[in-house]
């Protein structure tokens, strides 16, 4: 299955530019962007096994804890900074948003929408939600900062970030209307 979120993200990245993927896992997205857009990409990842896989995927991967900031990179070093489905697992979201603003111009963030109707429905039923985009049990989830699409829009306004593009996906299909209710995954393109 082709990941629509990756395809959409690649549409928001210019060819032959410098891209940083925060929490890049095994580098699948960067590899895809390299193939599609011939980008000069770097990924940040903390998990040792992902570093091994990233090397196999022939991407540049830097082992670092995102929570420590992006001090190895100079200001405005990247054309695009991507935080793909990582935001919700971070302790200090404020700090990483500031760091993304500092090192990049074009900012892309994707995250699972906690306001998705299936999530709301499960809570109404008295259970913590589980879905394709939130697959973990409540007791072992790395996702500690869940938010809704509206919450994220508020944060962007507070951070002085303008939303230039947004897209919502459910089960790999785009959602046009009532996105905060019907969208399982939100993808935002932001600029300062």
């Amino acid at each position, binding site marked *: 299955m082709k990941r629509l979120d990756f395809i959409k993200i690649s549409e928001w990245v210019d060819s032959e530019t*410098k891209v940083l993927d925060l929490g890049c896992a095994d580098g699948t997205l960067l590899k895809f962007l390299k193939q599609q857009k011939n980008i*000069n990409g*770097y990924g940040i990842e903390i998990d*040792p*096994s992902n*570093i*091994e896989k*990233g*090397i*196999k995927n*022939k991407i*540049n*991967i*830097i*082992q*670092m804890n995102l929570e420590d900031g992006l001090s*190895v*990179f*100079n200001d405005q*070093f990247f054309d695009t900074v991507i935080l793909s489905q990582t935001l919700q697992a971070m302790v200090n979201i404020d700090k990483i948003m500031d760091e993304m603003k500092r090192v990049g111009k074009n900012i892309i963030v994707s995250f699972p929408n906690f306001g998705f109707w299936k999530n709301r429905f499960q809570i109404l039923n008295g259970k913590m939600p589980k879905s394709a985009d939130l697959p973990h049990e409540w007791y072992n989830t790395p996702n500690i900062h869940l938010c809704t699409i509206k919450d994220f829009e508020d944060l962007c306004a507070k951070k002085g970030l303008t939303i230039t593009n947004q897209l919502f996906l459910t089960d790999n299909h785009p959602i046009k209307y009532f996105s905060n209710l019907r969208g399982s995954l939100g993808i935002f393109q932001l600029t300062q």
Partner: protein
Amino acid sequence: MSRSVGIVKSKIFHCKDELSLACGQSLKEFELVYETYGKLNSKKNNAILIPHALSGNHHVAGKYHKADKYPGWWDNMVGPGKPIDTNQYFVIGVNNIGGNDGSTSAKSINPKTKKIWGSSFPIVTVQDWVLAQKKLIEYLGINQLYAIVGGSLGGMQAIQWSIAYPDAVKKILCIAAAPSLTAQNIAFNEIARQAILQDDNFFKGDFYQHHTKPKKGLRIARMLGHITYLSNDAMDKKFGRKLIQGKYNYNFQKNYEIESYLNYQGDKFASSFDANTYLRMTKALDYFDLEKIYKKKLSKVCSKIKADYLVISFTSDWRFPPARSKEIVTALLDNNINVTYAEIKAETGHDAFLLHNDHYHQLISNYLRS
């Protein structure tokens, strides 16, 4: 052992070219002792150079004879099916100039005077070593090395290669290294040197003609070094406060196991290592400072580099800590160089780069294959 390169033999490369050294002196000609494992392919593009660290040499892998107790110093890394796979790569180990194990050094005869160099042997630097290594690589008919894999002082040589000869190497694997030493590092080296220099048997470096060795000094130097290559945790785990005979002696004989270990290591080293080499190796470490050599900021120095980099550090290494490796990473990033950085969780300190660790070995193997 099936995964060993087997019985190996070292060779000598005699270079008739003059080697101009950073100190201003030059060697009219020189010899490098080296070993190779695996086969150089017809395109000559599968060669990997492994420069050694402070006490290392050209004997990277394999044994000299069947009953040989000790294989080469990186035998867990180099061999058929190992991370640096000799079924695939042609691996070169070389003893540096000034080294302990056969290359031109203070123990050699000065062709001018026909006497042992001794104290008059020049101070050699990382740049000098790389110059000499380049001559060897040319002699072997190799235009471009596939990779250079270096740990510690070996990592410094790897960096220097990629700056001095940007087209002559494709991949640099720079492990537990730094762009320069810190004051603390230099301080440790100075104590080691003083121990040797003040040994009555040192004779200002001309101890050979007195048929003796500054063993006392070398012992202390090695004991000190050993402490800095290990982490506190690793030492605690291995020795703790364990007593050799389970009780206090109430004298100055060895009482703790750590004392016995350090003394054993010191003795072993002092009987086999050359004091002039030790002095020069530590000096080469101290003098390696890319910003000073090239009179530019590190990121400007790295602008010449064309090779791809894998930089590796170990969490408990306090002699070449992760922060120093990150300085290298930052300088490479500034120049849009392909770089991957791994910070390996290991409790064994600086020595971790020589020890077996599945993840570490997988990284090296994947990187060489990618």
